[in-house]
C-alpha cells in the first residue's frame, strides 16, 4: 500500500471534476435569457476575428456578455473556493470562510463607501472605481486584522489571536456598511443590498483577464505552499519542527487569500458559502491533502458557481436572481450538515 505516492488516491476524482467543469461551462455559454445556438457561437467567433464591425446582435451578446460571464464564473468560483481551502488550512478549522480575516466585509465597506460617498469624494476611474474601492477595502480590513493581532501577546497558537481579531474587525467594517446603508438615499441603499448579494452580470473581458491572472497565480503559489499547510494541520509547533517558517507562511497565505477573494469580490459583490462548502465537500469525498484540495477546489468552485449562475439566470428569466441567494440556498443546508458531522472536531 505505501507504495502509492501522495497523489494517487486523489487522482481519480480530478479528471472527473475537470470534465464536469467543461460540460457545465458549455451549458453556461449555451443557455441564457437570449437564445444562442452553437452555430451562432461559431459564426460569432469567426466574424469577430475577421470583421468585428459586422457582428449581429446575438453574436455580440455572445462575445461581449455571455462568454466573458461564463469565464468569470469559472475564475471567481475557483478563487473563492481556493480562498476557502487556504483559510481552513491556516485556521485548522473546517467552518472557516475566506471572509474571516476581514476581506469580504472590507470589500463590502469599500463598495458601500463608493455607492454612498463616491460622488462626494471625487475619485473617478470610470468603471473601475467600484472594483478598486472594494479591493482596497478588503486589503485594508485584512491589514488591520494582521497588524492588531501581531501586537497581541499571544505566544502559542497565535492563529487564535488572528481569528478573534478577524471577528472584531469584521464587526467594525460591517457596522460601517450598516452605517452607509443607513445614511444612504433609497436607491443607494438598494444598490448596497444587491451588491451584498452578488452578481456576475458585470463581467467584461478586462475583468476576465484580471480574474484569470489572479486565479492562476493563486493556484500556482498555493500549490507551492500546500505541503507546508499540510504540516500546519498538526499544529504550529509541529509545523515548526518540520522546518516550516510559520510566521511567513501565515502572512503569505493570508495575502494570497486577500488577493483571490478581494479581487473576485470587487467584481461580483459578495458571494457567500462557496469558500465554505467546497473544501468540505472535497474532504468528504477524498481527504485533506492541501494539494488535492487546491486543485480540486478550483475545479469544484468553478463548477458550483457556474451551476449557481445558470440557476440564477434561468429560473426567473428574463429577470435574474442575485447569485448570493442561490449559493446560500445550497450552502446553508450543507453548512448545517457539516456542523452535525462528528468527524470534525473544532
Amino acid at each position, binding site marked *: 500500500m505505501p507504495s502509492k505516492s501522495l497523489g494517487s488516491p486523489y487522482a481519480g476524482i480530478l479528471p472527473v471534476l475537470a470534465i464536469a467543469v467543461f460540460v457545465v461551462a458549455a451549458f453556461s455559454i449555451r443557455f441564457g435569457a437570449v437564445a444562442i445556438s452553437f452555430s451562432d457561437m461559431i459564426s460569432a467567433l469567426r466574424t469577430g476575428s475577421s470583421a468585428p464591425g459586422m457582428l449581429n446582435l446575438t453574436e455580440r451578446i455572445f462575445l*461581449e*456578455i455571455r462568454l466573458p460571464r461564463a469565464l468569470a464564473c469559472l475564475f471567481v468560483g475557483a478563487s473563492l473556493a481556493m480562498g476557502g481551502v487556504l483559510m481552513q488550512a491556516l485556521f485548522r478549522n473546517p467552518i472557516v470562510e475566506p471572509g474571516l480575516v476581514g476581506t469580504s466585509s472590507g470589500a463590502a465597506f469599500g463598495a458601500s463607501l463608493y455607492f454612498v460617498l463616491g460622488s462626494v469624494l471625487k475619485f473617478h476611474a470610470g468603471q473601475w472605481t467600484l472594483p478598486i474601492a472594494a479591493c482596497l477595502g478588503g486589503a485594508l480590513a485584512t491589514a488591520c486584522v494582521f497588524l492588531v493581532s501581531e501586537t497581541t501577546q499571544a505566544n502559542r497558537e497565535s492563529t487564535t489571536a488572528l481569528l478573534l481579531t478577524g471577528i472584531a474587525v469584521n464587526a467594525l467594517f460591517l457596522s460601517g456598511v450598516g452605517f452607509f446603508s443607513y445614511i444612504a438615499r433609497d436607491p443607494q*441603499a438598494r*444598490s448596497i*443590498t444587491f451588491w451584498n448579494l452578488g452578481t456576475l452580470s458585470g463581467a467584461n473581458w478586462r475583468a476576465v483577464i484580471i480574474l484569470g491572472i489572479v486565479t492562476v497565480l493563486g493556484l500556482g503559489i498555493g500549490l507551492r505552499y500546500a505541503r507546508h499547510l499540510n504540516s500546519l494541520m498538526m499544529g504550529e509547533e509541529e509545523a515548526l519542527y518540520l522546518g516550516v517558517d510559520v510566521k511567513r507562511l501565515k502572512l503569505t497565505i493570508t495575502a494570497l487569500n486577500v488577493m483571490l477573494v478581494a479581487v473576485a469580490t470587487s467584481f461580483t459583490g459578495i458571494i457567500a458559502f462557496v469558500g465554505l462548502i467546497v473544501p468540505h465537500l472535497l474532504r468528504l469525498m477524498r481527504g485533506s491533502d492541501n494539494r488535492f484540495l487546491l486543485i480540486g477546489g478550483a475545479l469544484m468552485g468553478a463548477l458550483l458557481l457556474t451551476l449557481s449562475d445558470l440557476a440564477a439566470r434561468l429560473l426567473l428569466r*428574463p*429577470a435574474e436572481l442575485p447569485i448570493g*441567494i442561490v449559493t*446560500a*440556498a445550497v450552502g446553508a443546508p450543507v453548512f448545517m450538515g457539516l456542523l452535525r458531522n462528528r468527524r470534525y472536531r473544532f
Partner: protein
Amino acid sequence: MIKRCVGTLSLLLLLVGCRFNNQERGEHKERIVSLSKQYNEIIYALGAEKDLVAVDLSSTYPPQIKSLPTVGYHRALSAEGIVSVKPTLVLHDNNVGPEHVMRQLEQLKIPLKVFDTKGTDIQSTKALMTEMGRYFHKEAAADSLNHKLDQDMDKAAQRAGTYSSKPKVVVIHFGQAMNIYLTMTRASTAGTMITWAGGEIPIKSERGMVQLSPEIIASADPDVILLTDFGYDRLGSTDQVRTLPGVDSTRAAKSGRIFRVEEHDLVYIGPRTGENVLKLQDLIHAVKIAG
C-alpha cells in the same frame, strides 16, 4: 447573512406574484421596455401601451401591467435579460442599476431613452406628460390628463381650505427585508401629497424615508396611520397593526383610524395624483370611527 438572503428572497417572491415567465401576446412593431413606474403609468394613461413588451418589477399600476413579462427589479437588472425580449427601445429614468448594465446595453447599441423632463412635482409632471404625449403621438390624451390633474388639484385645494383641523398622518411603509419598517417623511412625495390633502406628516428629515422606532411613532402621536399595501397585507389587519411597538398608544390606534393605501399611489407624481389627493382627504379628514 442567511436571514438577509432569505428575507430578500421572500420579498422578491412576494413582490413577484406570478409575473415571471409571463408570455407576450400579439404582434409588435416597436418593442418598448420601460423601467420606470412613473413612465409606465403615464404610458397606460395615454393609451400608448400597445408597444410595451416588458417592464420592471416595481411597475404595478395599472393592474393590466402585471400581465407583462418583467425583466427584474430596476436596481438589479441584467443586460442579457433585457435584450432577450428584443427591445427596439429601453425607457428609464436614471434610477436603474447596476451601472454596468446600462453600459452593456449601450455597447450592444440598444437604444436607450430618458425623457428630458423630470416629473417631481405637479408642474413638471404635467410637462413630462406633455413631452410623452408628443413622443407617442397622443397629444390630445396628454392634454386631457393634464387638464384632469389640474381640476382634481384645484378641487383638493378648495376642500383643503374648508377643513378645520390639520391631522397628523404617519405613513408606514414596509421596507426592505427582515421587519424593517420605514416611515415616509415630510420631504417625501407622500409627505407633499398629504400636505396638499390638508394634513401633515410630523416626521421631518432630509431623506424620503426613515427607519421607524417606537419613539418616533409615540412622540408623533398621529391622528391617522396609513400603511402601504405591502406592509398592511403582511400584517393582515388593523389589530395586527396596533401590535407594532409604539402604535397602540397613539390617537390613531385609539380611534381606529388605521388605513391601507396603495404604495404606487404615493411614491411618485402621476396622472392620478390629484385623484389620490382627494382620496387622501377623505381618508384623513373622515369623522372618527367608533371603537
